Structure formats: structure tokens, C-alpha cells
């Protein structure tokens, strides 16, 4: 699988189970070391039922999960799952998430993997089903009746005769001492009473009243406050720190220096802020960054690691025979997580042990990296998840955690560290900048004969996993290297198509040696990737590479429809075989009242507003959730401002656990995708990232007049649950780009679609018209 698609993400989707690797850089030995979750051995054995579920003396249920909630709704949905499978009231379930002393190692909570991992037939779902069956068996034994004659509700097992026994009477406060059962049966979808219902997110009252304990509020006894002092430029090396420059700061505890890592610790947060500002440091600058203005050309000129995802071998010949050939080059800017709350962690590092409170998505991998950095055995490190500001992937949460641990170890006291806005944004692992080139041939009947696609993606570091501290800024400053890129030519594709980065458009057959893993009908196909060393750190940002690739694929599909003089929806359906992609596309189109007709150019007025409608779809990661989207936009010809007015979005993520939570994800994803499409891009100068606050990064504020959103949630019960949080964002930029074309005849091939770019393209068009 690795050779079939050298992915840059931190996991590989296996047969329904999560296999955490360290992106393509994994060696065989690392993969071999992985446990049931594709993770390492830990003190919490995932094969034991007691690692997941406990029935307390009062009959309440305590459940443990390694998938945590950052605001995406996992806490509530998983609580529903446990309540459903154990047949208890949801109020009777207490869910503990992501704690290395308590919860099984489920790797990282990311990448649309939580629902597939915990809501199908393994892991948390399997544990709850195993527990229910075990409890019924115990009741059968106690009541002297066959299990088939018993039913369960409200934590009480009842016989037809009326005899009954409660969970607490059966096992209250005692261990199950059972292995997880592969045969345990999930409760049938049609019988669900808690799962599948729009249960309001359980933390809402605390959240809305400002009583919720974010990681930013964790307090440890004797805690002091830290600040890091980052270099002025990427690649800068520390020459000298003048500790006397902060001697007069009242409440100063310590200046911490380790290799290129510099930080301060003080009794109060304000003293730490002052010390960080006053500390005099001499740095030696490294090489200048490549220029932003010509960066995409730079990217295409670099040698990288090449990967051939699919290659039918006949693309050049088929395109040469084609009736019409269409080519286009798309580019996508570096983008940022830009969490609204800057990242924070509290670490209490003692001589031979540590306790760390962190907003990380990866408590166990963080424990492993902290162990390496602190030189404390990982069994002696306790990492406890506490929700931080929404992360959307690898924001500063991991780096700040490791920074706090280093500061605490150096000063011997518990340290709370929160990044400044600049610390957060200048050094985060950006969403990759990409170039995507398409070339396709059309037959005389207007179908696609062949499609050739090549991309260049900027990549440096990423999730540190268990072994790569250098994938983050903290590790780099401490002298660790990022995971090596290993440049080299592509190998012939083998195995089954792994489309986890959505490089392969949904319209390709995705065949490798006769096994076709794609959902489309274009059989002459080639997809070649180049992973290029990025000057900046990169890492998973909600829909990593998938949003970039889908933007390019779905906009190019519109270009092909235009060349074939076909309606964009009809043209898509003609080339799609996958019923679920077809399903969401048709559902979105129906909700929007889509009228099929080929694009007809119209004369644009000189000023005023024009309207347009665009469509897109995605099979996320190939098979991990399906989204169809139609958007209506308004475009101001004088200002170049694009304003989406209505989204019609259909989502199919299998059996829905919580329709309200899913809707919240679909809506938020669409608007975040819209903000990213319209204006968000990381900027830089010769030293490093310059989009370091909310003036220099353009996120849509609350005053923006948001489009109306119509969501259509498909709810098939006979398929596994898939990811649900990244489909709508993935489809958004392409649909908006297609709507801009529909409104103006101008094709935007660079994200973001800033007003300046839109105006420039309009101007170009009016000149050639």
C-alpha cells in the first residue's frame, strides 16, 4: 500500500482499522511494532474489555476512548454509542477521553478516522457490544433462564416473566475480566434509540456559559508561566542570549536555553510576557526563503520524491488520438490552521516523571516524543487531554506541549505556557502549497478518452508520530531533523489504489494491474505526484492535500464539460460509476433545483453584480465519506469580490450517529472552506511567515453575511460509518471556482480567489474578448 500511494499523512486506512504509520517514511520495522490500533503497546490493553468499559456500583457506566473532542462532536456521539449498545440512559454514561493512564492508545484523533474506527464493529463499539452481551449472559446465569428470553433496557435485564436484575447487581464495581469479543453483535440500526438521534452536544451548558475547562485554564499547584522566544527567521541559529537583559523583570524565574530553543519562565503571565519581549538574543540568520511571487514555479523545479498513484500506460497515446485536448494548471496557496485561541499546555516535569495537560490530538505519540526530549521513560509520563481551541489538524497544540515540558524540566516547577499569536502562526505546520497540472483528451462523443494529472506538493515535517520530534518547530530548535523526504523517482503502482489524498479524480477507474479501486469510468489514466521539500513546516490541515486536489480536479472537470459543450452535472454523472458519489451529487443538485444546460457565454456588463452557480463533489479519501455541493454566488465586477449566497450540500457518511452534530460539521466545513477559498493564504518574506495575526491573515469575521445553507443528510444503514468532518470543506473551493466561471466566463485557477486576482482575470478576459 505504501508504494501504491506514498502518502504524506500520518495514517493509512487499512481494512476498517486505523493503521498509524509515520507517513511514507515508515520502515517495515515501525509497522511491525504497531499494535491493534496500529499504535504501540501501552499499559492499557485494548484487547481487554475492562480497558474500555466499567459498570460502577450505582449502575452508571464509565467508558474510555482514545478519540477526543475538539468541538467536532465526538464526545457526545461516542457517549450515545456507549449508551445505545449498553442499553442505558445517556445520562448514565461517563466518557473519559484520551489519557495515557486510562484510555487505550488509539493513535491520533484526526483525518475523518474517528467514526470509521469507533462506530463500526471494532474498538469502542465492539467493547460496548461485548459488555452488553456479557451482562445478558450473567443475567441468564443468575436468573436461570436462556439469554434469548431476556431483554435489556435502562441497564436492567428483564425476563418475559418479569424477573429482572440490574447491571450493578450483576457486576457493579467489579471487573469483567473478559477479552473483547469479535462475535459481539451491534444493536441493529432500526432499533437505535439514542444513537442516530440529534442529541444536543453534552458540553453545551458549560461551553455557552463560559464554565468549560479548556486546557488554557488548567492550574497545577505551584505553577509558573512561560513564554517561548522563537527565532526571527526560519533556519536562524542561536548565537548568544544575554540573560542580564531580563534581570530587572520582577518575578523572573529562569531563562531557558537548549540548543536553539529559548524560553522564559516567570511567576506571572505578565512577567513572562515582559521577559520574552526584553530578552536580548543574537541570532545568525540562515538562507533566505524562496520568493513568494514565484514560489509555484520554484516548487515545480525542485527534485522531490515521486509517486505514481496510477498509470494505465496508454495516456500519451490516447491523448494523441483525442478529438480535443484540454490542459490547465492549478495552484493552491499555503494555508493556516490559525486557531482562534493560541495554543497552551501545562507541564509538571519532575526528576523522573511528568504530568502533562495538552490539547494534542495524539496523547500517546506526544508521550513518546516527550519521553525522547525529556529523557524520561514514557511509562513515567502521563499525558492528559484537555480541549483547547479548535485545531482543524496539527495546529500549535503539540509544539506548545513539548515547549512547556522543556520549560518545566529546566525550572523544576509546573509551567503553563501559552503561545503569542505570532508564535502560533509564524511556526505552525501549514497546509501544503500545491501545483496541479491536468491534461485530458475528449472523444468526438464528448466523453473523456484519457486524463493525465501531475502534482507538486510542498512538504516538511508533519505530525511527529512516536518518533519524529523534528517534524515540529520545537524538535527543530532542539536539534532534531524532520522526517527525511527521501527524494527519488516513482515506482510502478502496485497493490490496490489508495486514494487517501484524493489525487485521483472520482472519474477515473483507478485500476492497478486489473484491480480497479476508483469509482469512475475514465480508463486511460495517470496520476503522478511530486513531494517537494517545503521551506516551511507543513502538516495536516483539515482536508490535507484533499482540498487542494479536489479544487483542481473538480474545476478541471468543469473545464472538460465546457470543452464537451455539456452540462457540468450531466458530464460528471456520465463519468461516475460510484453510486454513492452519484447519490450525493444528485441530491445536492435536486435540493438546488439544478437545471441542466451547457454553459453559454454572455456579455458582461461593465459594472454591477453578476450571479453564477457551481457544482462539485468528492469521495473523501476515495471511500471515506461522500459530498455533493452546489453553490450560488454573486460577484461584484468592480471590486472583484465574490459573495456566496446559497450552499446546497448533500452528505453521505453512512449511518448517522448524530444528525445535529453532523449538520454542524457540514455547515462549519462549508464556511471554513469558503473563507479559505476566498481569502486565506499564508504570506512570507525572505525570513519567514508574515501572516501572523488577523490583519495579515484574512479569515472571514462574524460580520460577514453568510450564505444560506441547505444540507441534505443521506443516512444509509447498510454500510459502515465513514468520516464526516471533512467532506464539505473539501468540495467548497471547487464549487465556488466553478460558480465564478458560470457567472463571468473567467476561470480562477489559484486559491484563494482574492478580489485582486478576480479583477485581474476579468481584466485579462475583457482584453481578449
Amino acid at each position, binding site marked *: 500500500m505504501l508504494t501504491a500511494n506514498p502518502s504524506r499523512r500520518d495514517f493509512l486506512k487499512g481494512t476498517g482499522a486505523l493503521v498509524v504509520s509515520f507517513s511514507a517514511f515508515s520502515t517495515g520495522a515501525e509497522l511491525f511494532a504497531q499494535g491493534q490500533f496500529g499504535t504501540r503497546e501501552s499499559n492499557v490493553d485494548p484487547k481487554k474489555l475492562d480497558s474500555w468499559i466499567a459498570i460502577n456500583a450505582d449502575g452508571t457506566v464509565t467508558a474510555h476512548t482514545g478519540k477526543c473532542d475538539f*468541538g*467536532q*462532536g465526538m464526545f457526545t456521539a461516542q457517549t450515545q454509542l456507549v449508551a445505545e449498545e449498553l442499553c442505558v440512559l445517556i445520562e448514565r454514561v461517563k466518557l473519559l477521553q484520551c489519557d495515557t493512564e486510562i484510555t487505550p492508545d488509539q493513535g491520533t484523533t484526526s483525518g475523518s478516522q474517528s467514526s470509521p474506527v469507533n462506530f463500526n464493529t471494532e474498538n469502542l463499539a465492539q467493547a460496548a457490544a461485548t459488555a452488553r452481551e456479557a451482562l445478558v449472559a450473567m443475567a441468564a446465569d443468575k436468573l436461570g433462564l436462556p439469554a434469548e428470553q431476556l431483554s435489556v433496557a435502562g441497564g436492567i435485564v428483564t425476563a418475559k416473566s418479569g424477573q429482572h436484575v440490574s447491571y450493578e447487581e450483576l457486576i457493579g464495581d467489579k471487573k469483567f475480566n473478559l477479552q473483547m469479543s469479535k462475535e459481539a453483535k451491534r444493536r441493529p440500526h432500526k432499533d437505535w434509540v439514542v444513537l442516530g438521534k440529534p442529541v*444536543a*452536544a453534552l*458540553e*453545551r*451548558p*458549560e*461551553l*455557552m*456559559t*463560559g*464554565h*468549560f*475547562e*479548556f486546557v*488554557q*485554564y488548567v*492550574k497545577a499547584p505551584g505553577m509558573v*508561566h512561560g513564554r517561548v522566544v522563537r527565532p526571527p527567521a526560519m533556519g536562524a541559529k542561536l548565537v548568544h542570549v544575554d540573560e542580564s537583559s531580563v534581570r530587572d523583570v*520582577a518575578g523572573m524565574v529562569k531563562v531557558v536555553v537548549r540548543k536553539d530553543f529559548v524560553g522564559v519562565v516567570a511567576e*506571572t*503571565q*505578565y*512577567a513572562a510576557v515582559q521577559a520574552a519581549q526584553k530578552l536580548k538574543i543574537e541570532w545568525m540568520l540562515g538562507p533566505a526563503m524562496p520568493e513568494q511571487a514565484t514560489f509555484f514555479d520554484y516548487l515545480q523545479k525542485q527534485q522531490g520524491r515521486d509517486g505514481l498513484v496510477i498509470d494505465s500506460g496508454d495516456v500519451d497515446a490516447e491523448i494523441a488520438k483525442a478529438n480535443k485536448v484540454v490542459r490547465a494548471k492549478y495552484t493552491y496557496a499555503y494555508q493556516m*490552521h*490559525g*486557531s*482562534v*485561541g*493560541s495554543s*497552551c499546555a501545562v507541564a509538571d516535569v519532575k526528576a523522573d516523571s511528568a504530568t502533562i495537560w495538552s490539547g494534542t490530538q495524539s496523547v500517546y505519540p506526544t508521550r513518546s516524543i516527550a519521553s525522547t526530549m525529556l529523557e524520561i521513560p514514557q511509562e513515567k509520563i502521563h499525558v492528559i487531554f484537555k*480541549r*483547547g*481551541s*479548535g485545531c482543524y489538524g496539527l495546529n500549535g497544540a503539540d509544539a506548545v506541549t513539548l515547549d512547556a515540558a522543556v520549560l518545566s524540566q529546566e525550572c523544576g516547577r509546573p509551567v503553563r505556557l501559552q503561545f*503569542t*499569536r505570532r508564535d502560533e502562526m509564524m511556526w505552525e505546520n501549514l497546509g501544503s502549497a500545491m501545483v496541479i497540472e491536468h491534461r485530458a483528451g475528449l472523444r468526438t462523443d464528448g466523453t473523456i478518452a484519457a486524463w493525465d494529472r501531475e502534482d507538486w506538493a510542498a512538504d516538511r515535517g508533519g505530525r511527529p508520530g512516536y518518533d519524529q520530534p523534528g517534524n515540529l518547530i520545537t524538535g527543530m530548535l532542539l536539534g532534531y531533523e524532520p522526517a527525511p523526504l527521501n527524494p527519488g523517482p516513482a515506482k510502478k503502482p502496485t497493490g490496490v489504489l489508495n486514494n487517501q489524498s484524493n489525487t485521483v479524480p472520482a472519474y477515473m477507474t483507478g485500476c492497478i494491474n486489473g484491480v480497479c479501486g476508483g469509482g469512475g469510468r475514465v480508463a486511460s489514466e495517470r496520476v503522478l505526484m511530486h513531494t517537494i521539500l517545503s521551506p516551511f513546516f507543513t502538516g495536516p490541515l483539515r482536508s490535507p492535500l484533499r482540498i487542494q486536489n479536489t479544487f483542481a480536479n473538480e474545476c478541471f472537470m468543469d473545464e472538460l464539460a465546457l470543452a464537451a459543450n455539456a452540462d457540468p452535472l450531466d458530464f460528471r454523472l456520465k463519468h461516475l460509476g460510484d453510486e454513492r458519489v452519484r447519490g450525493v451529487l444528485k441530491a445536492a443538485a435536486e435540493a438546488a433545483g439544478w437545471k441542466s444546460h451547457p454553459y453559454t457565454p454572455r456579455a458582461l456588463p461593465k459594472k454591477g453584480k453578476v450571479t453564477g452557480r457551481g457544482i462539485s463533489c468528492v469521495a473523501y479519501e476515495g471511500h471515506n465519506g461522500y459530498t455533493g455541493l452546489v453553490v450560488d454566488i454573486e460577484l461584484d465586477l468592480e471590486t472583484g469580490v465574490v459573495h456566496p449566497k446559497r450552499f446546497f450540500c448533500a452528505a453521505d457518511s453512512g449511518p448517522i450517529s448524530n444528525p*445535529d452534530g453532523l449538520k*454542524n*460539521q457540514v*455547515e*462549519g*466545513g*462549508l*464556511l*471554513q472552506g*469558503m*473563507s479559505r477559498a476566498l481569502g486565506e493564504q499564508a504570506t512570507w518574506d525572505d525570513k519567514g511567515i508574515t501572516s501572523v*495575526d*488577523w490583519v495579515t491573515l484574512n*479569515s472571514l*469575521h*462574524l*460580520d*460577514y*453575511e*453568510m450564505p444560506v*445553507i441547505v444540507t441534505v443528510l443521506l443516512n444509509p444503514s447498510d454500510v459502515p460509518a465513514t468520516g464526516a468532518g471533512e467532506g464539505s470543506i473539501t468540495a467548497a473551493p471547487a464549487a465556488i471556482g466553478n460558480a465564478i466561471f458560470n457567472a463571468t466566463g473567467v476561470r480562477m485557477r489559484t486559491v484563494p480567489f482574492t478580489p485582486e486576482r478576480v479583477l485581474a482575470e476579468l481584466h485579462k478576459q475583457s482584453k481578449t474578448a
Partner: protein
Amino acid sequence: MALINLRVNGQEHRVDVDPETPLLFVLTDVLGLRGPRFGCGLAQCGACTVIRNGQTIRSCVTAVNEIGTDEITTLDGLGTPEHPHPIQQAFIDEGAAQCGYCLSGVILTAKVTLDAKPNATDKEIREAMDGIICRCFAHTRMMRAIRKYAEEKKHAHS
């Protein structure tokens, strides 16, 4: 360091801090409040918003010694999980958040706007929300919750 008296959420406090300390740090680190949050430290995002005598301010850029005898109200001073303020209840009803980190800016700004002008139009409410950032983009639900609160307020007065 200096002793400073503060009126926060209806209670008197005396704190011993550097008088230049941002109000935010006093509220969170000294008084242990969980409503106001450090977002940017630059008055650009709204996460640190508190109400000072009926007006919203950004507590990350306001020194504690500027407050004097003014009454400060924070998101956690408005209501409790058991007894939420009506605008908080509207947010609960509408599920108007994802991570929820930005809520001080969103809820308090909307409240102050509607308290000053109960008949504010959607456009006026929106304009008041400039400079507030929600990166989860729960915007649509938030505006719905604010509108719901506005409607309830109107009915309560009529």
C-alpha cells in the same frame, strides 16, 4: 506590584498585581474565571471580550489599573450551566458553537448590542460583530441564536 480593587460579576476583589497587567490575566490567572480567553493579545479576535459598564472591551489590551470602579462582567458571570442567561440559553438551544473558544466575543458583543438597541436589524447586529473571529465557522448558528435572543427580548418587553 500594587493592590487594586476590582468589581467583577457583582463581587468585590482586591488583587496584588503589577498595575500594568492586562485585565485578562487578572481575570483568568488571579480570579480563576473561565469566560474570557487569550486569543491574539492584539484586540483583533474578540476571545477576551468582557463587559465594562455596559460596553464591551478587549481585556487583553486593557491594563487592570484602567478599570477603576467600573463593573466588569464576563461570560461566566452572565449565567451558570444550571441557570444560563437567556442569550446563553439561545446558544444552547441552537447549538451555536463547535469548540466554543470564541464565545465571549460572540455572546457578549451580541448582548451589549441588543441591550442598547433591542430593535437592531440583522445588518446592525452583524456589523457589531466585526472584529470577532470564529475559526470553526459556526457563524450561521450563532446568528440564528442571536436573532432568537433578540426575538425573545422583544416579546419580553411587549
